[in-house]
Each structure stands twice: as C-alpha cells, then as structure tokens.
C-alpha cells in the first residue's frame, strides 16, 4: 500500500471508491500477533500467541472474557481491544438487567459492528485498529464471528487473524469440515496445531500461547498454563522446522471463508 492524496482522513473517498484509512486500520490487524478461533456444534475455542515484549514484562492480554457465554480474542491495537471489551461487557450486563437472559452473540456482534462503522463515517474519529474474534454460545448454538475495523462482521467455522495467520488458515481449511462434530478435546487440539503453524519453527509451549474455551455447560474461561502445557505434551505438538509458505503482511487470497485480500488487488477489502 502506498501513500496517496486520498488517505488523509476517513471521510475521504478515493476515486476507486475506497476508504484508505479503514484499509490502513485493517493493516494494523494484520500486524498484530496471531489469534485463532474454531467452533463445533457445542463449543468454541479461542487461541492466541502471547509474546511478551521482554523477559521482564508480563504478557499482553489478548483474550477477554465478556460474559459467561461470550469471550473475545483480539489482534491489532490491543488498547482498542480493551476498550471494545469493556463496551461488550457493559452491553451484556445491560441486556441481562432488562431481559434477565444472556445477550445472544449475534446481537452483540451487530452492535459491535455498528459501533465500528460509526468510526468510519466521522471526520473527528478514527477506525478501531483491532480485529475481534468473538466466540460465544447462545440458544441457537455455538458461534464464532470476526469483527473487523471496517464495521463488517462474518460468521466462521474457523478463522485466524494477525501476523502469519495464513499458515493457520491453511491448516484450518484442511480440517474445518470435521469441526462441527468435533469433541471439545479435539477442537482444542486443532487450535493448538493451528497455533503452532503461526509460530513457524518456534517451540510451542504454554508460555507463548493462551487458550480459552466456552461450551454447553462450560462458562467462558481461559485455561491455565499447566492445563495448556499438559495438552501440548499430550498431543505432542512440538515446534516444526518446516516453514509455512507465507510471510506476515502479504496474505495470499485463499478460498472459502477467507476475507482479507491484499490492497493491490482491484476489489476493496470492505466489499467482502
């Protein structure tokens, strides 16, 4: 993507009908560390790579519990993600106050998307620089959604965002047909395998990743380090030397449920 005279503010269209500021915001998502989500009929698993800046600091929080039945994994500007999580939590609390029942996930993501859209149509605002993988359970089953800075949202069987997410997506595309009927354990296993793909040679240990699960009879919670390490050992997921084909930032357009096309193509990303 190159600088041009139509990218100064979000309220300026380009002659090709694109809003460059929004596309730049989506770039920010691609630069963030990977986040992955998968779902079955009864469970949703969110996984993300958690790299600390230095040995002295704590890990960046990338998975947030929003309510007992919903959680979110983010990639991009984590501060924006934190703020949006607080918004989502409040929406869930208010809905429960009024209706004494859980806010359906589908409604939550629409509200989130509408909030993101506002920032693409105000000259004094900027788009949120964070992509959210919203995983939750409601009366209509288990759901996984991706909310992007453009204000669009999509439902997925499985998805990955952030840097080197293409490697994870390739893995998920191979296996997603089996996810719906998958057991909870196999779903977590696939999440860990997909996560390993994004590490590209680095060893997968519980200190570099975070896993969260929500399901029927199981409130959203983040698995603790020991449990994750035990699962890694059990499934014998160690770092592989084989490098995945893609690099960070230049994502090849792939089939089926992928969505973020590189900007040098004619179709603007928000159209999908």
């Amino acid at each position: 993507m190159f600088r041009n005279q139509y990218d100064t503010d979000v309220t300026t269209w380009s002659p090709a009908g694109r809003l460059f500021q929004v596309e730049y915001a989506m770039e920010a998502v691609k630069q963030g560390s990977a986040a992955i989500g998968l779902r079955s009929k009864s469970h949703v698993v969110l996984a993300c790579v958690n790299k600390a800046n230095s040995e002295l600091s704590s890990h960046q929080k990338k998975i947030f519990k929003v309510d007992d039945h919903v959680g979110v994994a983010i990639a991009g500007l984590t501060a924006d993600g934190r703020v949006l999580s607080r918004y989502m939590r409040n929406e869930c609390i208010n809905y429960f106050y009024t209706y004494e029942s859980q806010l359906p996930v589908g409604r939550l993501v629409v509200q989130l998307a509408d909030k993101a859209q506002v920032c693409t149509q105000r000259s004094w605002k900027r788009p949120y620089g964070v992509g959210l993988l919203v995983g939750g359970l409601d009366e209509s089953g288990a759901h996984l959604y991706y909310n992007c800075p453009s204000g669009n949202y999509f439902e997925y069987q499985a998805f990955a965002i952030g840097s080197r997410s293409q490697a994870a997506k390739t893995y998920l595309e191979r296996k997603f047909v089996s996810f719906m009927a998958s057991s909870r354990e196999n779903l977590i296993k696939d999440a860990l395998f997909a996560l390993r793909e994004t590490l590209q040679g680095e060893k997968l240990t519980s200190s570099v990743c975070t896993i969260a699960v929500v399901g029927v009879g199981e409130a959203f919670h983040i698995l603790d380090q020991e449990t994750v390490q035990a699962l890694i050992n059990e499934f014998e997921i160690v770092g592989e030397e084989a490098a995945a084909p893609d690099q960070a930032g230049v994502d090849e357009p792939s089939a089926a449920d992928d969505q973020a096309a590189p900007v040098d193509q004619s179709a603007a990303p928000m159209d999908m």
Partner: protein
Amino acid sequence: MTKQQANWSPYDNNGGTCVAIAGADYCVIAADTRMSSGYNILTRDYSKIIQLADKSVMASSGFQADVRALQKVLASRHLVITWDLISYYYNKQMSCPAMAQLLSNTLYYKRFFPYYAFNVLGGLDNEGKGCVFTYDAVGSYERVGYSSQGSGSTLITPFLDNQLKSPSPLLLPAKDAVTPLSEAEAIDLVKTCFASATERDIYTGDKLEIVVLNASGIRQEYMELRKD
C-alpha cells in the same frame, strides 16, 4: 386551606422478617417466605434472599418491588466492578465487606426517593469469618454479630440480644463480634426465633428459608411455619 394530600402511595409494605447471625467460620441468613399486603396474603412462597456474590447473601424485607429492583441494580453494579477486579486479578470475586459498602452506596443513591427495603447482608469476610451487616432504607450500615429486620424484628431482636449479646457494656463499640455458637446451634436458634415471631406477628409465617454460607460453600434449608 388544608395541605394537599397524596391520593396514592408509591410504596407498599409486603411484610416479612429477616435474620442473620455471624459465626466464627459460617454465616446464617434466614427469612420467611410470606408476602402480604394489608391483611391479605399475596403468596406463601416468595424468597426474600438473594446471593449477590461468592460470599455475600442479602435478605430484604419491606416493599418487594423495590427489593427486586435493588437486587437487579446490585447484580449489575457488582458485575461492572468485578470486571475491573478480574481484569487485573484473575478469578477474584468481590468480598463481603466491599459488597456491604456497595449496597450502602446504592441505597444512598436514592436518598430522595428511597428503596423501601430493609436489608441484612450476610457472608464471609476476607479471613473466612462470618460477617453480618445491617442497614436502614437509605444505606446507613454497621457490621454486627447478628441482626433482624422487618415486621417481626421487634420480637426477634430482644431475644437475640438475650442469647447472643456479649456482656461487655463497657466496650465501645460493643464487641458483639461473632457468636461462639456452632453452626448447628445457630440454625436452631434461628428456627426458634421464627417459630416465636410467627406466633405473634401476623405478617410472618408460612415457611422459613435458611441459607448457610461457610468454607465448603453455600446451602439452603427450609422449615415449615404456622400458616395462620
């Protein structure tokens, strides 16, 4: 020119009585399940007790519509605050003394159109000791060893004073602290309180709901009371 009188009241009193007793490592919270209006019984099976957090249970008598509204507001406010807590400390729930302050603030918020609710909050403090907090309608509260609120409180409180009040009039504030009674003895005492109050207070009766909070968790018990 006589002063204009209101031709309706936003409040009603649904009667009922609540009691709570704090022990060394437990807390007993009890309330009858009768809901009345004037000389009529609306229902014999209405719970006045709600669990607000891991270790906080509230019983409220008075106007049950206000009680229910208060319970909902507290539940929401508790969640909002807990999110801040668990953002930083994973899995930390609000403590009972903190909930006590929250309840006080929530009540005072409506100082000029109060919740017609007379509350007792019971639970375990940060050290695992039983604690009871007693309130008036606008949020004035105090930590005590035991308390009673509602229509039967005037009958029950003197009896509890006799049984539980420590003989230390020289100590200020009165060091009632927690009762040395065992959990089973405290439950028995509560049952006695209500059995007696039911005899003389027309608004108390039907069934007694007892909630016990201790280190192993929370449990519920019921006892039948006179239905007249």
